[in-house]
Protein backbone atom coordinates (compact mmCIF):
# COMPACT_ATOMS: atom_id res chain seq x y z
CA UNK A 1 0.00 0.00 0.00
CA UNK A 2 2.87 2.35 0.78
CA UNK A 3 4.60 1.43 -2.38
CA UNK A 4 4.78 5.06 -3.37
CA UNK A 5 7.03 5.84 -0.45
CA UNK A 6 10.42 4.25 -0.20
CA UNK A 7 11.50 3.42 3.34
CA UNK A 8 14.88 4.87 4.31
CA UNK A 9 17.73 2.35 4.09
CA UNK A 10 18.45 2.42 7.83
CA UNK A 11 15.26 0.64 8.78
CA UNK A 12 16.14 -2.31 11.01
CA UNK A 13 14.32 -5.38 12.23
CA UNK A 14 13.27 -6.13 15.78
CA UNK A 15 15.28 -8.85 17.53
CA UNK A 16 14.59 -10.73 20.76
CA UNK A 17 16.65 -9.81 23.81
CA UNK A 18 19.24 -12.39 24.83
CA UNK A 19 18.70 -13.18 28.53
CA UNK A 20 21.50 -12.04 30.78
CA UNK A 21 23.31 -10.31 27.96
CA UNK A 22 23.77 -7.09 29.95
CA UNK A 23 24.44 -8.56 33.37
CA UNK A 24 26.08 -6.03 35.71
CA UNK A 25 25.50 -2.98 33.57
CA UNK A 26 23.72 0.16 34.71
CA UNK A 27 21.98 2.04 32.00
CA UNK A 28 20.41 5.46 32.30
CA UNK A 29 17.27 6.26 30.37
CA UNK A 30 16.15 9.84 29.92
CA UNK A 31 12.48 9.55 29.14
CA UNK A 32 10.73 12.15 27.02
CA UNK A 33 7.75 12.40 29.32
CA UNK A 34 5.28 9.95 30.75
CA UNK A 35 1.57 10.37 30.48
CA UNK A 36 1.15 9.58 26.79
CA UNK A 37 0.60 6.11 25.37
CA UNK A 38 3.71 6.16 23.22
CA UNK A 39 6.22 6.81 25.97
CA UNK A 40 4.44 4.53 28.39
CA UNK A 41 4.60 1.67 25.93
CA UNK A 42 8.24 2.47 25.27
CA UNK A 43 8.98 2.46 28.97
CA UNK A 44 7.22 -0.85 29.56
CA UNK A 45 9.25 -2.39 26.76
CA UNK A 46 12.47 -0.95 28.16
CA UNK A 47 11.80 -2.20 31.67
CA UNK A 48 10.91 -5.68 30.44
CA UNK A 49 13.93 -5.85 28.14
CA UNK A 50 16.27 -4.61 30.86
CA UNK A 51 15.01 -7.29 33.16
CA UNK A 52 15.58 -9.98 30.58
CA UNK A 53 19.04 -8.69 29.82
CA UNK A 54 19.90 -8.30 33.50
CA UNK A 55 20.53 -4.60 33.10
CA UNK A 56 19.95 -2.14 35.95
CA UNK A 57 17.82 0.49 34.26
CA UNK A 58 17.52 3.92 35.87
CA UNK A 59 14.85 6.18 34.41
CA UNK A 60 14.66 9.96 34.59
CA UNK A 61 11.63 11.74 33.20
CA UNK A 62 12.42 14.94 31.32
CA UNK A 63 8.73 15.88 31.12
CA UNK A 64 9.09 17.20 27.56
CA UNK A 65 11.48 19.85 28.86
CA UNK A 66 15.08 20.19 27.69
CA UNK A 67 16.13 21.81 30.97
CA UNK A 68 14.88 18.77 32.86
CA UNK A 69 16.74 16.52 30.41
CA UNK A 70 19.90 18.44 31.23
CA UNK A 71 19.32 17.75 34.91
CA UNK A 72 18.79 14.09 34.11
CA UNK A 73 22.11 14.00 32.27
CA UNK A 74 23.86 15.48 35.28
CA UNK A 75 22.27 12.95 37.58
CA UNK A 76 23.35 10.07 35.37
CA UNK A 77 26.88 11.35 35.45
CA UNK A 78 26.69 11.32 39.25
CA UNK A 79 25.42 7.77 39.17
CA UNK A 80 28.26 6.54 36.93
CA UNK A 81 26.02 4.78 34.43
CA UNK A 82 27.67 2.56 31.82
CA UNK A 83 25.46 3.56 28.94
CA UNK A 84 22.79 6.08 28.23
CA UNK A 85 19.51 6.13 26.35
CA UNK A 86 18.35 9.66 25.70
CA UNK A 87 14.88 10.60 24.56
CA UNK A 88 14.43 14.33 25.00
CA UNK A 89 12.60 16.98 23.08
CA UNK A 90 15.20 19.49 21.94
CA UNK A 91 17.80 18.46 19.36
CA UNK A 92 19.44 21.86 19.53
CA UNK A 93 20.09 21.43 23.23
CA UNK A 94 21.80 18.11 22.65
CA UNK A 95 25.32 19.52 22.61
CA UNK A 96 25.13 20.86 26.13
CA UNK A 97 23.21 17.88 27.40
CA UNK A 98 25.99 15.71 26.00
CA UNK A 99 28.64 17.88 27.59
CA UNK A 100 27.03 17.75 31.03
CA UNK A 101 26.17 14.08 30.91
CA UNK A 102 28.38 11.03 31.45
CA UNK A 103 30.92 10.27 28.74
CA UNK A 104 29.54 6.84 27.85
CA UNK A 105 27.93 5.33 24.76
CA UNK A 106 24.63 7.07 24.03
CA UNK A 107 21.69 5.89 22.04
CA UNK A 108 19.29 8.61 21.08
CA UNK A 109 15.63 7.89 20.59
CA UNK A 110 13.72 9.76 17.93
CA UNK A 111 15.68 13.00 18.39
CA UNK A 112 19.31 13.43 17.46
CA UNK A 113 21.81 13.82 20.30
CA UNK A 114 24.86 15.23 18.62
CA UNK A 115 27.78 15.14 19.23
CA UNK A 116 27.69 12.32 21.77
CA UNK A 117 25.25 10.00 20.09
CA UNK A 118 26.69 6.58 19.34
CA UNK A 119 23.60 5.56 17.46
CA UNK A 120 20.16 6.84 16.66
CA UNK A 121 17.15 4.62 17.17
CA UNK A 122 13.82 5.95 16.26
CA UNK A 123 10.87 6.63 14.25
CA UNK A 124 11.44 7.63 10.71
CA UNK A 125 9.09 10.49 11.50
CA UNK A 126 8.81 11.92 8.05
CA UNK A 127 8.41 8.44 6.60
CA UNK A 128 5.78 7.54 9.19
CA UNK A 129 3.92 10.68 8.26
CA UNK A 130 4.32 10.13 4.54
CA UNK A 131 2.99 6.59 4.51
CA UNK A 132 -0.19 7.66 6.27
CA UNK A 133 -0.60 10.68 4.02
CA UNK A 134 0.00 8.51 1.00
CA UNK A 135 -2.59 6.00 2.16
CA UNK A 136 -5.13 8.75 2.64
CA UNK A 137 -4.27 10.13 -0.76
CA UNK A 138 -4.81 6.77 -2.39
CA UNK A 139 -8.10 6.34 -0.61
CA UNK A 140 -9.32 9.72 -1.76
CA UNK A 141 -8.11 9.20 -5.25
CA UNK A 142 -9.89 5.88 -5.57
CA UNK A 143 -13.13 6.93 -3.93
CA UNK A 144 -13.55 10.65 -4.43
CA UNK A 145 -11.21 11.64 -7.21
CA UNK A 146 -9.15 13.56 -4.66
CA UNK A 147 -12.08 15.77 -3.73
CA UNK A 148 -12.32 16.80 -0.06
CA UNK A 149 -13.50 19.83 1.89
CA UNK A 150 -10.70 20.51 4.34
CA UNK A 151 -7.54 19.09 5.85
CA UNK A 152 -7.64 19.55 9.61
CA UNK A 153 -4.25 18.94 11.15
CA UNK A 154 -4.31 18.36 14.90
CA UNK A 155 -0.77 19.16 15.94
CA UNK A 156 1.24 19.72 19.07
CA UNK A 157 3.58 22.57 18.35
CA UNK A 158 5.16 22.03 21.73
CA UNK A 159 6.60 18.75 20.47
CA UNK A 160 8.76 20.72 18.05
CA UNK A 161 10.53 19.21 15.03
CA UNK A 162 8.91 15.86 15.43
CA UNK A 163 5.57 17.53 15.03
CA UNK A 164 6.73 19.21 11.85
CA UNK A 165 8.19 16.02 10.43
CA UNK A 166 5.15 13.87 11.10
CA UNK A 167 2.45 16.34 10.23
CA UNK A 168 4.39 17.75 7.32
CA UNK A 169 5.13 14.19 6.21
CA UNK A 170 1.44 13.39 6.09
CA UNK A 171 0.85 16.39 3.86
CA UNK A 172 3.78 15.38 1.62
CA UNK A 173 2.61 11.81 1.28
CA UNK A 174 -0.86 13.01 0.43
CA UNK A 175 0.50 15.53 -2.05
CA UNK A 176 2.25 12.74 -3.96
CA UNK A 177 -1.14 11.34 -4.84
CA UNK A 178 -3.57 14.23 -4.79
CA UNK A 179 -1.45 17.32 -5.08
CA UNK A 180 -0.85 20.11 -2.56
CA UNK A 181 -3.14 20.05 0.48
CA UNK A 182 -6.10 22.39 0.17
CA UNK A 183 -7.97 24.32 2.86
CA UNK A 184 -5.43 23.47 5.55
CA UNK A 185 -6.42 24.14 9.14
CA UNK A 186 -3.64 23.68 11.64
CA UNK A 187 -4.88 23.33 15.21
CA UNK A 188 -2.54 23.28 18.17
CA UNK A 189 -3.85 20.84 20.72
CA UNK A 190 -1.57 21.79 23.57
CA UNK A 191 1.47 20.15 25.09
CA UNK A 192 1.69 16.59 23.86
CA UNK A 193 -1.68 16.81 22.11
CA UNK A 194 -4.71 16.78 24.39
CA UNK A 195 -8.10 15.27 23.73
CA UNK A 196 -10.21 17.99 25.33
CA UNK A 197 -8.39 20.83 23.61
CA UNK A 198 -8.78 19.03 20.32
CA UNK A 199 -12.44 18.45 21.02
CA UNK A 200 -13.16 22.10 21.70
CA UNK A 201 -11.32 23.34 18.64
CA UNK A 202 -12.68 20.73 16.28
CA UNK A 203 -16.20 21.56 17.44
CA UNK A 204 -15.66 25.16 16.34
CA UNK A 205 -13.91 24.10 13.17
CA UNK A 206 -16.83 21.86 12.18
CA UNK A 207 -19.13 24.82 12.64
CA UNK A 208 -16.95 26.78 10.29
CA UNK A 209 -17.27 23.94 7.76
CA UNK A 210 -21.03 23.63 7.55
CA UNK A 211 -22.25 20.95 5.22
CA UNK A 212 -18.74 19.68 4.56
CA UNK A 213 -19.01 15.93 3.94
CA UNK A 214 -15.38 14.97 3.56
CA UNK A 215 -13.07 16.42 6.15
CA UNK A 216 -9.66 14.85 6.44
CA UNK A 217 -8.56 14.90 10.07
CA UNK A 218 -5.00 13.93 10.83
CA UNK A 219 -3.59 13.88 14.34
CA UNK A 220 -0.18 13.76 15.94
CA UNK A 221 -1.39 11.11 18.34
CA UNK A 222 -4.43 9.07 19.17
CA UNK A 223 -5.74 11.38 21.89
CA UNK A 224 -6.36 14.29 19.59
CA UNK A 225 -8.19 12.06 17.15
CA UNK A 226 -10.33 10.82 20.04
CA UNK A 227 -11.12 14.47 20.78
CA UNK A 228 -12.01 15.12 17.14
CA UNK A 229 -14.31 12.11 17.11
CA UNK A 230 -16.02 13.34 20.27
CA UNK A 231 -16.57 16.73 18.68
CA UNK A 232 -18.07 15.16 15.59
CA UNK A 233 -20.16 12.74 17.57
CA UNK A 234 -21.83 15.56 19.49
CA UNK A 235 -22.78 17.22 16.20
CA UNK A 236 -23.73 13.96 14.57
CA UNK A 237 -21.04 14.35 11.94
CA UNK A 238 -18.85 11.36 12.67
CA UNK A 239 -19.49 10.26 9.09
CA UNK A 240 -17.78 13.37 7.80
CA UNK A 241 -14.37 12.71 9.33
CA UNK A 242 -11.71 10.77 7.41
CA UNK A 243 -9.02 9.90 9.87
CA UNK A 244 -5.28 9.68 9.58
CA UNK A 245 -3.46 8.81 12.78
CA UNK A 246 0.04 8.35 14.12
CA UNK A 247 0.76 5.34 16.30
CA UNK A 248 -1.44 2.35 16.91
CA UNK A 249 -2.55 1.42 20.39
CA UNK A 250 -4.61 -1.74 19.96
CA UNK A 251 -6.84 -0.80 22.88
CA UNK A 252 -8.04 2.39 21.29
CA UNK A 253 -11.05 0.87 19.58
CA UNK A 254 -12.95 4.13 19.29
CA UNK A 255 -10.68 5.20 16.46
CA UNK A 256 -10.15 1.89 14.72
CA UNK A 257 -13.87 1.28 14.51
CA UNK A 258 -14.77 4.80 13.38
CA UNK A 259 -16.66 4.79 10.08
CA UNK A 260 -13.83 6.39 8.11
CA UNK A 261 -10.65 5.40 9.82
CA UNK A 262 -8.30 5.40 6.86
CA UNK A 263 -4.80 4.76 8.10
CA UNK A 264 -2.37 4.93 10.95
CA UNK A 265 1.35 4.36 11.17
CA UNK A 266 2.42 1.69 13.60
CA UNK A 267 5.42 2.78 15.65
CA UNK A 268 5.78 -0.32 17.77
CA UNK A 269 7.04 1.65 20.78
CA UNK A 270 6.72 -1.48 22.88
CA UNK A 271 9.43 -3.03 20.72
CA UNK A 272 11.85 -0.09 20.59
CA UNK A 273 13.80 -1.71 23.38
CA UNK A 274 14.60 -4.59 21.05
CA UNK A 275 16.46 -2.17 18.82
CA UNK A 276 18.01 -0.21 21.66
CA UNK A 277 19.25 -2.53 24.37
CA UNK A 278 21.21 -5.09 22.36
CA UNK A 279 22.95 -2.32 20.46
CA UNK A 280 23.73 -0.28 23.57
CA UNK A 281 25.13 -3.34 25.33
CA UNK A 282 27.35 -3.98 22.33
CA UNK A 283 28.48 -0.37 22.32
CA UNK A 284 29.29 -0.46 26.03
CA UNK A 285 31.37 -3.55 25.39
CA UNK A 286 33.23 -1.63 22.73
CA UNK A 287 31.71 -3.24 19.68
CA UNK A 288 30.84 -1.34 16.57
CA UNK A 289 27.12 -0.69 15.93
CA UNK A 290 25.11 0.93 13.18
CA UNK A 291 24.76 4.71 13.45
CA UNK A 292 21.14 4.84 12.31
CA UNK A 293 18.64 2.26 13.41
CA UNK A 294 15.14 3.07 12.25
CA UNK A 295 11.87 1.50 13.24
CA UNK A 296 10.12 -0.60 10.64
CA UNK A 297 6.88 1.37 10.48
CA UNK A 298 3.84 -0.15 8.94
CA UNK A 299 0.69 1.40 7.65
CA UNK A 300 -2.22 0.13 9.66
CA UNK A 301 -5.64 0.06 8.09
CA UNK A 302 -8.89 -1.61 8.94
CA UNK A 303 -7.83 -4.47 6.66
CA UNK A 304 -4.49 -5.33 8.16
CA UNK A 305 -4.77 -4.34 11.79
CA UNK A 306 -5.75 -7.80 12.97
CA UNK A 307 -2.64 -9.28 11.39
CA UNK A 308 -0.28 -6.67 12.83
CA UNK A 309 -1.83 -6.64 16.27
CA UNK A 310 -3.69 -9.87 16.82
CA UNK A 311 -4.59 -8.75 20.33
CA UNK A 312 -6.79 -6.01 18.86
CA UNK A 313 -10.24 -6.71 20.15
CA UNK A 314 -12.61 -4.21 18.67
Amino acid at each position, binding site marked *: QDAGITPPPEVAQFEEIAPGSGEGLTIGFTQLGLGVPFTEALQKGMVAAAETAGVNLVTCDSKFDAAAALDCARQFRTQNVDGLVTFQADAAAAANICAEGPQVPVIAIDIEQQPCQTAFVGAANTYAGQIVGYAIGQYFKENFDCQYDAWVSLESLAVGVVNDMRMGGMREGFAQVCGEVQNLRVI*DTGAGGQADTAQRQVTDTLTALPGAQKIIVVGINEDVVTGALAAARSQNRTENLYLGVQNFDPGNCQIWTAPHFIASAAYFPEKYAQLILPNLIKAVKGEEIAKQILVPHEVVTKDNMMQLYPETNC
Partner: protein
Amino acid sequence: MPENVQATSAVPATTIRARMKAPEWGALLIFLLAEIVFFTINSPYFLSWPNIVNIITALSITGILAAGGTILLIAGQFDLSVGSGTAFVALMFAIAAQSLGIMPAVGVAVLVGVGIGMLNGFLVTVVGVNALITTLGTLAIFRGLTLSIGGASSVRITGFDWAIARPFLDIPLSAVLFLVIAVGIAVLLSRTVFGRTIYAIGANENAARLVGIRTKKTLFLGFVISGVCMAITGLVSASQLGSTSGTTGTGLELAVVTAIILGGTSLKGGTGSMFGTVLGLLIVGVLNNGMTLMNINSTWQQVAAGTLLILAVSFDQIRQRFIRA
Protein backbone atom coordinates in the same frame (compact mmCIF):
# COMPACT_ATOMS: atom_id res chain seq x y z
CA MET B 1 -2.83 42.48 45.42
CA PRO B 2 -3.51 45.63 43.69
CA GLU B 3 -7.19 45.75 43.05
CA ASN B 4 -7.09 49.33 44.05
CA VAL B 5 -7.76 48.32 47.51
CA GLN B 6 -11.11 49.28 48.88
CA ALA B 7 -11.03 52.13 46.44
CA THR B 8 -9.56 53.77 49.53
CA SER B 9 -12.22 55.47 51.50
CA ALA B 10 -12.06 58.15 48.85
CA VAL B 11 -14.69 56.83 46.48
CA PRO B 12 -17.01 59.73 45.84
CA ALA B 13 -20.65 59.02 46.32
CA THR B 14 -21.35 59.72 42.66
CA THR B 15 -19.33 56.67 42.00
CA ILE B 16 -21.51 54.78 44.32
CA ARG B 17 -24.61 55.94 42.57
CA ALA B 18 -23.06 55.49 39.17
CA ARG B 19 -22.04 52.03 40.20
CA MET B 20 -25.51 51.15 41.22
CA LYS B 21 -26.63 52.16 37.79
CA ALA B 22 -23.65 50.84 35.84
CA PRO B 23 -22.80 47.75 37.81
CA GLU B 24 -19.34 46.29 38.30
CA TRP B 25 -19.68 44.11 35.28
CA GLY B 26 -20.96 46.84 32.96
CA ALA B 27 -17.62 47.26 31.25
CA LEU B 28 -17.17 43.54 30.80
CA LEU B 29 -20.58 43.28 29.20
CA ILE B 30 -19.68 46.03 26.74
CA PHE B 31 -16.44 44.25 26.03
CA LEU B 32 -18.27 41.02 25.36
CA LEU B 33 -20.67 42.78 23.03
CA ALA B 34 -17.74 44.30 21.17
CA GLU B 35 -16.26 40.85 20.69
CA ILE B 36 -19.56 39.56 19.42
CA VAL B 37 -19.93 42.39 16.93
CA PHE B 38 -16.37 41.90 15.73
CA PHE B 39 -16.72 38.20 15.13
CA THR B 40 -20.15 38.57 13.58
CA ILE B 41 -18.61 40.86 11.00
CA ASN B 42 -15.62 38.62 10.45
CA SER B 43 -17.19 35.23 10.29
CA PRO B 44 -20.49 34.29 8.69
CA TYR B 45 -20.82 31.30 11.00
CA PHE B 46 -20.38 33.15 14.24
CA LEU B 47 -23.86 34.41 14.96
CA SER B 48 -25.68 31.19 14.20
CA TRP B 49 -27.60 29.12 16.67
CA PRO B 50 -25.35 26.05 16.29
CA ASN B 51 -22.30 28.17 16.96
CA ILE B 52 -23.82 29.84 19.99
CA VAL B 53 -24.59 26.38 21.27
CA ASN B 54 -21.00 25.38 20.53
CA ILE B 55 -19.67 28.26 22.58
CA ILE B 56 -21.76 27.38 25.57
CA THR B 57 -21.05 23.68 25.21
CA ALA B 58 -17.32 24.34 25.05
CA LEU B 59 -17.63 26.28 28.29
CA SER B 60 -19.59 23.69 30.15
CA ILE B 61 -16.75 21.94 31.95
CA THR B 62 -14.81 25.09 32.77
CA GLY B 63 -18.08 26.75 33.70
CA ILE B 64 -19.27 24.12 36.11
CA LEU B 65 -15.91 24.15 37.85
CA ALA B 66 -15.93 27.95 37.87
CA ALA B 67 -19.28 27.90 39.63
CA GLY B 68 -17.76 26.06 42.57
CA GLY B 69 -14.62 28.14 42.27
CA THR B 70 -16.58 31.38 42.50
CA ILE B 71 -18.03 30.34 45.84
CA LEU B 72 -14.56 29.53 47.11
CA LEU B 73 -12.88 32.65 45.80
CA ILE B 74 -15.57 34.90 47.26
CA ALA B 75 -14.88 33.19 50.55
CA GLY B 76 -11.19 33.97 50.03
CA GLN B 77 -10.15 30.43 49.11
CA PHE B 78 -8.68 28.68 46.07
CA ASP B 79 -9.11 25.32 44.47
CA LEU B 80 -6.44 24.43 41.94
CA SER B 81 -7.17 20.71 42.06
CA VAL B 82 -10.24 20.94 39.83
CA GLY B 83 -8.54 19.82 36.61
CA SER B 84 -6.82 16.77 38.01
CA GLY B 85 -9.85 16.04 40.18
CA THR B 86 -11.97 15.91 37.04
CA ALA B 87 -9.54 13.48 35.42
CA PHE B 88 -9.42 11.29 38.50
CA VAL B 89 -13.20 11.16 38.79
CA ALA B 90 -13.50 10.27 35.12
CA LEU B 91 -10.95 7.48 35.48
CA MET B 92 -12.57 6.03 38.59
CA PHE B 93 -15.88 6.21 36.81
CA ALA B 94 -14.50 4.42 33.76
CA ILE B 95 -12.97 1.68 35.87
CA ALA B 96 -16.09 1.27 37.97
CA ALA B 97 -18.29 1.27 34.88
CA GLN B 98 -16.35 -1.67 33.46
CA SER B 99 -16.87 -3.81 36.51
CA LEU B 100 -20.06 -2.51 38.13
CA GLY B 101 -22.07 -1.00 35.32
CA ILE B 102 -22.97 2.60 34.62
CA MET B 103 -25.32 3.52 37.45
CA PRO B 104 -23.20 2.26 40.34
CA ALA B 105 -20.24 3.92 38.64
CA VAL B 106 -22.02 7.26 38.75
CA GLY B 107 -22.32 6.76 42.47
CA VAL B 108 -18.62 6.01 42.65
CA ALA B 109 -17.85 9.18 40.70
CA VAL B 110 -19.90 11.31 43.07
CA LEU B 111 -18.22 9.73 46.06
CA VAL B 112 -14.78 10.32 44.59
CA GLY B 113 -15.57 13.99 43.84
CA VAL B 114 -16.98 14.56 47.30
CA GLY B 115 -13.98 12.76 48.73
CA ILE B 116 -11.53 15.07 46.95
CA GLY B 117 -13.48 18.07 48.18
CA MET B 118 -13.50 16.72 51.72
CA LEU B 119 -9.78 16.08 51.60
CA ASN B 120 -9.10 19.64 50.47
CA GLY B 121 -11.56 21.02 52.99
CA PHE B 122 -10.09 18.98 55.81
CA LEU B 123 -6.56 20.08 55.05
CA VAL B 124 -7.51 23.73 54.80
CA THR B 125 -9.98 24.08 57.64
CA VAL B 126 -8.88 21.47 60.14
CA VAL B 127 -5.14 21.09 59.60
CA GLY B 128 -4.83 24.73 58.61
CA VAL B 129 -2.72 24.37 55.45
CA ASN B 130 -2.97 27.32 53.09
CA ALA B 131 -5.51 26.60 50.35
CA LEU B 132 -3.08 27.30 47.54
CA ILE B 133 -0.54 24.78 48.85
CA THR B 134 -3.23 22.25 49.66
CA THR B 135 -4.77 22.29 46.24
CA LEU B 136 -1.43 22.50 44.43
CA GLY B 137 -0.61 19.37 46.40
CA THR B 138 -3.82 17.56 45.58
CA LEU B 139 -3.49 18.75 41.98
CA ALA B 140 -0.21 16.84 41.77
CA ILE B 141 -1.50 13.88 43.75
CA PHE B 142 -4.60 13.23 41.68
CA ARG B 143 -2.83 13.85 38.39
CA GLY B 144 -0.15 11.42 39.45
CA LEU B 145 -2.70 8.86 40.59
CA THR B 146 -4.65 9.19 37.37
CA LEU B 147 -1.53 8.58 35.32
CA SER B 148 -0.32 5.78 37.55
CA ILE B 149 -3.59 3.91 37.81
CA GLY B 150 -5.00 4.57 34.38
CA GLY B 151 -1.78 4.46 32.44
CA ALA B 152 -1.32 6.79 29.57
CA SER B 153 -3.66 5.28 27.06
CA SER B 154 -7.18 6.45 27.14
CA VAL B 155 -9.84 4.29 28.65
CA ARG B 156 -12.95 3.72 26.58
CA ILE B 157 -16.35 4.40 28.12
CA THR B 158 -19.36 3.07 26.25
CA GLY B 159 -23.08 3.49 26.72
CA PHE B 160 -22.75 6.79 28.53
CA ASP B 161 -23.65 9.37 25.94
CA TRP B 162 -26.12 11.55 27.82
CA ALA B 163 -23.94 14.66 27.72
CA ILE B 164 -24.06 14.89 23.94
CA ALA B 165 -27.75 14.17 23.67
CA ARG B 166 -29.72 17.17 22.42
CA PRO B 167 -33.24 16.77 23.72
CA PHE B 168 -34.42 20.29 22.89
CA LEU B 169 -33.39 23.33 20.89
CA ASP B 170 -30.39 21.35 19.70
CA ILE B 171 -28.60 22.09 22.97
CA PRO B 172 -26.49 19.27 24.38
CA LEU B 173 -27.32 18.24 27.92
CA SER B 174 -23.83 19.20 29.12
CA ALA B 175 -24.55 22.82 28.19
CA VAL B 176 -27.97 22.66 29.82
CA LEU B 177 -26.37 21.30 32.95
CA PHE B 178 -23.87 24.15 33.00
CA LEU B 179 -26.64 26.72 32.65
CA VAL B 180 -28.68 25.11 35.40
CA ILE B 181 -25.71 25.00 37.75
CA ALA B 182 -24.74 28.59 36.96
CA VAL B 183 -28.23 29.81 37.74
CA GLY B 184 -28.35 27.67 40.85
CA ILE B 185 -25.09 29.02 42.20
CA ALA B 186 -26.04 32.58 41.24
CA VAL B 187 -29.21 32.25 43.30
CA LEU B 188 -27.35 30.54 46.09
CA LEU B 189 -24.84 33.35 46.30
CA SER B 190 -27.12 36.34 45.87
CA ARG B 191 -30.33 35.23 47.52
CA THR B 192 -29.66 32.74 50.24
CA VAL B 193 -28.36 33.02 53.75
CA PHE B 194 -25.66 30.52 52.86
CA GLY B 195 -24.50 32.87 50.12
CA ARG B 196 -24.41 35.78 52.54
CA THR B 197 -22.29 33.70 54.83
CA ILE B 198 -19.79 33.08 52.05
CA TYR B 199 -19.45 36.79 51.35
CA ALA B 200 -19.10 37.53 55.05
CA ILE B 201 -16.30 35.01 55.49
CA GLY B 202 -14.45 36.42 52.52
CA ALA B 203 -14.95 39.97 53.75
CA ASN B 204 -13.68 39.35 57.29
CA GLU B 205 -13.36 35.82 58.57
CA ASN B 206 -12.85 36.95 62.12
CA ALA B 207 -15.87 39.23 62.20
CA ALA B 208 -17.95 36.53 60.54
CA ARG B 209 -17.09 34.11 63.29
CA LEU B 210 -18.10 36.63 65.92
CA VAL B 211 -21.58 37.04 64.46
CA GLY B 212 -22.02 33.30 64.83
CA ILE B 213 -21.06 32.02 61.42
CA ARG B 214 -19.41 28.60 61.52
CA THR B 215 -16.64 29.75 59.25
CA LYS B 216 -14.71 26.51 59.08
CA LYS B 217 -17.77 24.41 58.52
CA THR B 218 -18.87 26.75 55.77
CA LEU B 219 -15.47 26.74 54.09
CA PHE B 220 -15.38 22.96 54.34
CA LEU B 221 -18.74 22.89 52.62
CA GLY B 222 -17.37 25.24 49.96
CA PHE B 223 -14.60 22.76 49.16
CA VAL B 224 -17.09 19.92 49.10
CA ILE B 225 -19.22 21.87 46.62
CA SER B 226 -16.12 22.28 44.50
CA GLY B 227 -15.61 18.52 44.80
CA VAL B 228 -19.18 17.89 43.68
CA CYS B 229 -18.48 20.11 40.68
CA MET B 230 -15.46 17.91 39.88
CA ALA B 231 -17.67 14.85 40.10
CA ILE B 232 -20.08 16.42 37.64
CA THR B 233 -17.39 17.57 35.23
CA GLY B 234 -15.71 14.18 35.47
CA LEU B 235 -18.95 12.60 34.32
CA VAL B 236 -19.52 15.24 31.65
CA SER B 237 -16.01 14.79 30.31
CA ALA B 238 -16.31 11.00 30.31
CA SER B 239 -19.59 11.22 28.48
CA GLN B 240 -18.53 13.89 26.00
CA LEU B 241 -15.31 12.19 25.01
CA GLY B 242 -16.54 8.65 25.43
CA SER B 243 -13.17 8.01 27.00
CA THR B 244 -10.76 9.40 29.51
CA SER B 245 -7.01 9.66 29.67
CA GLY B 246 -4.17 10.90 31.77
CA THR B 247 -4.24 14.34 30.20
CA THR B 248 -7.97 14.95 30.66
CA GLY B 249 -8.56 18.31 32.28
CA THR B 250 -4.95 19.51 32.20
CA GLY B 251 -4.74 23.26 32.71
CA LEU B 252 -8.40 23.65 33.69
CA GLU B 253 -7.44 25.26 37.00
CA LEU B 254 -5.94 28.25 35.23
CA ALA B 255 -8.89 28.64 32.87
CA VAL B 256 -11.22 28.55 35.85
CA VAL B 257 -9.32 31.09 37.91
CA THR B 258 -8.96 33.36 34.90
CA ALA B 259 -12.69 33.41 34.25
CA ILE B 260 -13.55 34.08 37.88
CA ILE B 261 -11.07 36.90 38.34
CA LEU B 262 -11.91 38.39 34.95
CA GLY B 263 -15.53 38.36 36.11
CA GLY B 264 -14.67 40.70 38.95
CA THR B 265 -14.24 38.44 41.94
CA SER B 266 -11.39 39.75 43.99
CA LEU B 267 -8.55 37.59 45.25
CA LYS B 268 -9.09 39.25 48.58
CA GLY B 269 -12.52 37.73 48.92
CA GLY B 270 -15.83 39.25 49.94
CA THR B 271 -16.85 40.48 46.50
CA GLY B 272 -17.84 38.95 43.19
CA SER B 273 -20.77 37.17 41.64
CA MET B 274 -21.66 34.19 39.54
CA PHE B 275 -22.97 36.50 36.86
CA GLY B 276 -19.53 38.10 36.64
CA THR B 277 -17.96 34.68 36.32
CA VAL B 278 -20.31 33.78 33.48
CA LEU B 279 -19.29 37.00 31.74
CA GLY B 280 -15.66 36.11 32.29
CA LEU B 281 -16.25 32.65 30.83
CA LEU B 282 -18.07 34.06 27.83
CA ILE B 283 -15.39 36.65 27.08
CA VAL B 284 -12.77 33.93 26.91
CA GLY B 285 -15.06 31.39 25.23
CA VAL B 286 -16.27 33.74 22.50
CA LEU B 287 -12.72 34.78 21.82
CA ASN B 288 -11.47 31.20 21.38
CA ASN B 289 -14.43 30.25 19.26
CA GLY B 290 -14.30 33.34 17.06
CA MET B 291 -10.60 33.05 16.41
CA THR B 292 -10.88 29.39 15.49
CA LEU B 293 -13.72 30.26 13.11
CA MET B 294 -11.49 32.91 11.57
CA ASN B 295 -8.82 30.21 11.21
CA ILE B 296 -6.27 32.25 13.14
CA ASN B 297 -3.11 30.35 13.94
CA SER B 298 -3.30 29.13 17.50
CA THR B 299 -0.04 30.73 18.58
CA TRP B 300 -1.40 34.11 17.57
CA GLN B 301 -4.63 33.15 19.29
CA GLN B 302 -2.63 32.97 22.50
CA VAL B 303 -1.22 36.42 21.96
CA ALA B 304 -4.65 37.84 21.21
CA ALA B 305 -6.24 36.10 24.19
CA GLY B 306 -3.63 37.47 26.57
CA THR B 307 -3.97 40.95 25.18
CA LEU B 308 -7.73 40.93 25.34
CA LEU B 309 -7.74 39.58 28.86
CA ILE B 310 -5.70 42.58 29.95
CA LEU B 311 -7.71 44.96 27.79
CA ALA B 312 -10.99 43.81 29.25
CA VAL B 313 -9.88 44.58 32.77
CA SER B 314 -8.06 47.79 31.81
CA PHE B 315 -11.20 48.98 30.15
CA ASP B 316 -13.09 48.46 33.40
CA GLN B 317 -10.44 50.29 35.40
CA ILE B 318 -10.40 53.22 33.03
CA ARG B 319 -14.17 53.43 33.01
CA GLN B 320 -14.20 53.54 36.79
CA ARG B 321 -11.68 56.33 36.81
CA PHE B 322 -13.67 58.16 34.19
CA ILE B 323 -16.81 58.01 36.28
CA ARG B 324 -14.91 59.23 39.28
CA ALA B 325 -13.53 62.27 37.47
